[in-house]
């Protein structure tokens, strides 16, 4: 067992699950989307990105790309949340919630691709 692979797989999967946890639920209902879950998703995604640094293989490059996409989407969602909660007059409206959640939905898609890549890598490794 390779500890590096365990840590790597753990973070990639955790990033996807946290993202999914935040995303699931009624799109425009602020009560079913916990902001702490979004925070955790951002942090775990960032860690997953850093773990993917410095891999020179083709699959490593695609891994890094998916992670960067997820980071971008999640950070955009966070900024949108900060704007809605702290700057705008109306506060957390349904429209704002829908925007935040759909952005995190995009990130979820990137994270799913990341998990698929992880699976492909694992399967092709065993075949050798």
């Amino acid at each position, binding site marked *: 067992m390779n500890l590096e692979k365990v840590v790597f797989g753990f973070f990639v999967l955790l990033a996807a699950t946290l993202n999914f946890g935040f995303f699931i639920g009624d799109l425009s209902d602020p009560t079913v989307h916990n902001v702490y879950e979004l*925070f955790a998703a951002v*942090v775990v995604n*960032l*860690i997953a990105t*850093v773990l993917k640094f*410095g891999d*020179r293989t083709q699959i490593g490059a695609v891994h890094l790309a998916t992670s960067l996409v997820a980071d971008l989407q999640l950070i955009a969602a966070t900024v949108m949340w900060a704007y809605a909660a702290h700057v705008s007059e109306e506060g957390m409206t349904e429209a704002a919630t829908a925007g935040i959640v759909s952005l995190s939905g995009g990130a979820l898609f990137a994270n799913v691709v990341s998990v698929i890549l992880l699976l492909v890598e694992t399967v092709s490794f065993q075949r050798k």
Partner: protein
Amino acid sequence: MMQRLFFSAKKGRRRARWRTPVAAGVQASATIFLILRRMRAPLITLIAIFAVSVLGLTLVPGRDADGAPERMSIFDAFYFMSYTATTIGFGELPQPFTAAQRLWVMVTIYLTVIGWAYALGSLLTLLQDRKFRQALAVQHFTRKVRRLNEPFLLFAGYGRTGQALGRSMDALGRRLVVVDISEERIDALDVDQYAADVPGLVGNAGNPHVLEMAGLGHPDCEAVLAMTDDDETNLSVVMAATLLRPEVPIVARTTSATIGNRMRAFGTPTVINPFDRFGDRLRLALRAPASYQLLTWLETGPGTHLPGRAEPPANGRWVVCGFGRFGRELAADLRANGAEVTVLDPEADPGRGGPQLSVICGDATDPEVMDQVGLTDAVGFVAGTDNDTTNLCLVAAAQRVNPELFVVARQNDPDSTPMFAQMRIDSLLVATEVVTHEAYARLSSPLLWQFLSRLPEQGDDWADRVVGRLADHCGFHLENVWETTLTGRETPALGEWLAGGAARLGDLLREPADPDRPLPVVTLLVRRGNGDVVMTPDDDELLHKGDTLLLVGPSAARSALNAVIAVETLFSYVVHREYVPAGTLWRWLVQTVRRR
């Protein structure tokens, strides 16, 4: 399986004829991955510390503006952590903190300081890491070489020989790329004054990957020079260059005849063995002093003062001290010249003598041994050991016994130049200079090399006349040696004149300001379009289209001639003494008037 083996063998043979790429860029592009990989741990630590701090701050109970209990939002907590962790410290925002919050902030301050210190420290260590810096330097070098878009010379080895040659090539406007094992020499490239930027790489030139990085595979690589101090490395360079780029000319130096033969086994490199060449030159100097003088002058390059002409001794016996590689080569050359040779060496075997050769075993600095050699009736003396102090002692001792001797000495260390300069030495061998001069003559212009290789067979009187003409026209300092091809492409009038069949060389080489005066240049050689060569043509030599001239003269004469060839009006004025208007309209008017 058999089929596969056969196929790959066939493929291998086919590939050898094409350019074989050697993976070189991989090493350089790894740099960025190295940074990223090493920065993993510090970055993750930083992210984790930030996450824990922000999360903690949102969970610790606080107070709002009215004193009612309220927790900080993630947004405020992240804002606070960002300015606190980066030591900017705006204070307690948005509300003054409660004791519980201060307790947590205290913990986070120390945590984030550790995180930042760790991340920055790792980054700085990485930047100062030797390997990392090397990787950066290699990347920088390969990028520079890749972007070269003009022909360049690849120097493998940049010791004294390489430097001397490199400087004269740079003065001629050629580009260089340098590989050397010594870091000092590569660093010196930045400090020394070169007209063009010289990319340099610290590395073993014998390694094909290093050569590939230095542009061996570059389409603009015009020649490879194997100039390291080590014969084996030079051999590897020759091998790599001939196998990977068979069409690129190679110049290699060696002091060993065996290595020279091995180099030649790989194709047609120019192998310069200074001992061998010096022997040939010495024979020339003894047989034809003026030819030798002209040869030395031209191959030393621009800016050289006319060297003195040595007076060769009459035929007689020579004494050669030191019977190593140099002594052996020289004794053979002297015997081939008809001289009788006495060899003196502490480790020589007296039984190895032969016709015209007697070998004496003994220490040359011992006066008794010197008596035995019989210097009084000898005509020439060679101090050819591999130790400069011994050579100087030998020269001094020999001249005390017989001041009339023709003295040949070998200088090994370039630092002993001032001492050798003080002695009265008729012919001095400095191995680095022999190599530099020959490589210069071969690389600076193909016509110069053609001229020099035909020079010895022209005779001493001819050489004496050429030296006289050069001194009359251009003075005692060699200024410019250049080639000019007459195509007539830029100036149709020149093309017509050449096609007319009565184009005298003397009519072209005229001063543009005053066509009655000849240009102060000497034409050393004319090469016809079909490859025929005319040595030192006179003014009545007829020129044809496609001829290339090899000329010697001052810079002013060079630019004057270039102008005559390139500018139609100037050409007509110089050759036909006619004024042709420069503008199209005026020219048409003049032609129309003339026709009437």
